[in-house]
């Protein structure tokens, strides 16, 4: 097959494109977890603000600015939750998988099945309440590019894991 590769121009047209693929979104229930997580981090950061102002000794007059800017930041993050949810999309193809996310900084990660080292299902406390799970794919390329698809139902996650494991097994042979 690789012998056909001498002429780039022609092959580029023939290669199936990753661009016009319809990707599937994650479970609706996951938005609850997203809101909860944001809420938690919001509270943590506010507590951080209070502590740092009290103990590290910021100038008093700046403290309002810090509070207000933190709250504005969180208001923006909260208002973007819906879009952020919609942007989390994944697709499994014949030979690779693709995951995209992000609102202001969007990123798309592509991993071919024959480069996956191992895969794992994670389920946190909240996820268990909503019967959700996340499916994580590890490569030798480092943690920067490991895909973690959050907000799948437990069943879907198991199913996709089986599917990809079977693919990997097949490639190994």
């Amino acid at each position: 097959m690789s012998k056909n590769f001498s002429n780039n121009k022609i092959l580029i047209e023939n290669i199936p494109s990753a661009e016009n693929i319809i990707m599937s979104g994650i479970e609706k229930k996951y938005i609850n977890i997203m809101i909860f997580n944001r809420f938690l981090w919001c509270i943590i950061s506010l507590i951080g603000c209070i502590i740092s102002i009290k103990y590290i000794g910021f100038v008093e007059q700046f403290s309002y600015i810090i509070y207000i800017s933190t709250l504005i930041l969180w208001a923006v993050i909260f208002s973007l939750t819906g879009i952020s949810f919609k942007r989390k999309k994944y697709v499994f193809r014949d030979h690779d998988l693709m995951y995209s996310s992000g609102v202001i900084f969007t990123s798309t990660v592509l991993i071919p099945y024959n480069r996956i080292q191992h895969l794992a299902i994670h389920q946190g406390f909240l996820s268990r309440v909503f019967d959700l799970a996340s499916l994580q794919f590890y490569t030798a390329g480092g943690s920067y590019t490991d895909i973690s698809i959050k907000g799948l139902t437990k069943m879907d996650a198991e199913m996709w894991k089986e599917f990809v494991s079977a693919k990997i097994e097949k490639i190994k042979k």
Partner: protein
Amino acid sequence: MSKLNKSIIQKFSVEQKQSKVGMVVIFFDKFISIVKNYAIFLIIPMWKDFDLILLIILILLIALFTAALTVIEFKYFTFQFDFNKNDFIVKKGFLKKTKLSVPLNKIQQINLNQNFIHKFLNLYEIQMDTAGSDSKEVSIKAVKEDIAFEIKDFTDFLKEKNIDIDLEKSNESKSLEIDFYTLIKTGLTSRYFQTLGFIIALFFGALEYLDALGINFIPSFSSFIKNGNFGFIAILVYIILIFLAVFASNLISTIIKFYKFSASKTNNNLSVSYGLISTKTILMNPNKVQVFSFTQNWIQKKIDLCNIIIYQASSNMNISSDKSKEGSKVNIPGANSSDKKTIFEFIYKSFDDNEFIIKPNIRKFSVNFFLIGVIPSILFFGINHFFELLSSLNYIMIQTIYLAVILFVSYRLYKNNIMSVSKNFIKVQSGFWDITTKIIEIHKIQSIVIDQEIWYKKLNLANLTLCTAGGMIRFSYMDYFILRKITDNFLFKVEVSNKSWM
């Protein structure tokens, strides 16, 4: 070729301890790391009311404690080989016992290291780099020279046995040596900006340290600024002094690090060793090479010199431990173009030069200029306006020089940033003075990341990151259409390739 004779099998089948003299090495290793980690707690209270006797008692206590730890570690540390299963077994620990068994075929490379004490006692540290992310790196701190080389030889032999090789043909060892003169040339021409940055960081670090010790340096500092001579010649002298400091520290560090650099081919591997105070030996296997990178600046181009760094697949990529990353990185300082060609051909066997060249969008230039040129200038203007630091003539002069330099730098950054794609290779070149070129093989790509800032969506620009098991290459401000086409191409090649990435 039967390196695996009976005496060796007998010797390593039973549990072996490290060399007894090696306790000295373990002791100093532990002692230095303890002192390094806790020195700050000692020095600050000591500074104000210094008590020599207390200090000596403290150091003795630490030494005693370390000695106890050392004896325990030595006593409970054994290593052996299971020749039936081809496993290397290490047992260690007193309270928490650990047994590590590493299959020989999982061992990527064996490094023999020596620091100053090792050299003095004629001992070696054996370091085994293993593949697979969950198994830990194995290291034996101090063994005698003969044992170290026996282990290295027979593990290499056992490993090679599994892969059939034509020994007769590949056993010729052609070596590459970097002589002292070349090292001097390399030291004088490389890493200006990194060292300058390092010196500045060191300067501010020292200031902070003085501050922590409660020494007030501000009066003498401000009197220097006020009364010091800042005429044209004085500034020139300061600049020359800074440059001399950069030259000197580069020269010294290069010579210490790479003294007696030699590389020799053995079977399928390249064995590299170097170092003045501590000698490092690294084995490089062409199959494990992920990124081939070389750096060359304008001066080095004139005298035909470049610094090569070869990144190999490392087991501990996920854990950001510098030590493991250092172990899988091969440095070749001061190689000339024919050396570079030889090494490249040794690793990759071939090179196709039918390249498809991609350049970044002009935004790379304008955004860089805006971020590091225009914004700081506005800030500086504001500060100068309120605090009146400089006279308007001086301000205009400095501002113009700054903007001109940044203009030049951003232009160079833009102009030198080139990605070229050929049948088997991807090459990305970047930098403004030290121009680094990174080359990866397409089938060694692990994953691809495409990212885009929302404000570049309309402009159809995006950034591409290609990850391998030994580092990544990134190319930004790329036309989105071309990016999609080439990523589809890369994915296709990775997916149909039968070649293993390691």
